């Protein structure tokens, strides 16, 4: 009797742990596509290739979903896949040119971001490279905050701010009126200010 009880207890525990890190492929695109795309494009500098890599990442994620142990957050896990895809992309293009392979990641342990080659030759006093890295991080911070917004707000904010669409076009496409749009923009912006506050709104 005791054994049964403790078994069901651990099972419940497992379920709770799983609830924290569980794969949810239906939500991948809405939650992570822009985040991954931003990560890829800041390293590849070609929108088409970046787009392909993001798509391949999702497909590879789906394929190896059964190997997902749940010890990393979903997004971290997807980024890890994308990171390999970016490295593979550079390996392929390098070998095509018959050049030596360039290792892109500094270390397997960190999620360090930036251009390895550039940093190796960087002038430590120059702030240009650091600015570029900071901007990459900023872009990722903003995208992860957008992903936390309610879906409709995130969509309107993205269309307006990132795609730069005008109010009328968005209203037509989403079938809303301008005052709806501005309410959603207001909520999105307030949400983002709160989300980014801790790191980026320092005085």
């Amino acid at each position, binding site marked *: 009797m005791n054994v049964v009880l403790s078994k069901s207890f651990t099972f419940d525990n497992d379920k709770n742990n799983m609830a924290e890190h569980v794969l949810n492929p239906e939500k991948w695109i809405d939650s992570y596509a*822009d985040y991954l795309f931003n990560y890829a494009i800041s390293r590849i500098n070609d929108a088409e290739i970046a*787009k392909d890599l993001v*798509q391949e990442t999702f497909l590879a994620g789906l394929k190896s979903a059964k190997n997902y142990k749940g010890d990393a957050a979903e997004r971290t896990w997807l980024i890890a896949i994308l990171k390999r895809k970016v490295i593979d992309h550079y390996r392929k293009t390098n070998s095509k040119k018959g050049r030596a392979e360039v290792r892109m990641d500094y270390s397997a342990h960190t999620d360090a971001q930036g251009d390895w080659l550039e940093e190796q030759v960087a002038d430590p006093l120059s702030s240009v490279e650091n600015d570029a890295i900071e901007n990459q991080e*900023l*872009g990722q911070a903003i995208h992860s905050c957008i992903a936390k917004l309610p879906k409709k707000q995130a969509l309107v904010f993205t269309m307006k701010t990132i*795609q730069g669409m005008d*109010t009328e076009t968005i209203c037509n496409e989403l079938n809303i009126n301008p005052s709806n749009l501005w309410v959603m923009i*207001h909520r999105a*912006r307030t949400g983002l200010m709160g989300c980014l506050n801790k790191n980026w*709104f320092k005085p």
Partner: protein
Amino acid sequence: MMISCEKAALICNKTQYREATFMEKMKLKFHLFMCKNCPEFVERNTKLTALCQKANLQCLTQDDKRRMKRLLKEKS
């Protein structure tokens, strides 16, 4: 002439996308002169716009996302 804080926030949001009229901007200026709370909102909102520009944000189009969703659904 004095507008509400809600109206001021709306004009401030429009300003972030260069969609506020001259008259609206004047009303906002006047409001900010009189209001205690709104200047902080305007400052933070403007900062958010600056951050978004600095980050040079990129995103996939809705069509791309729809296509990926379809593909993911087919494969799952």
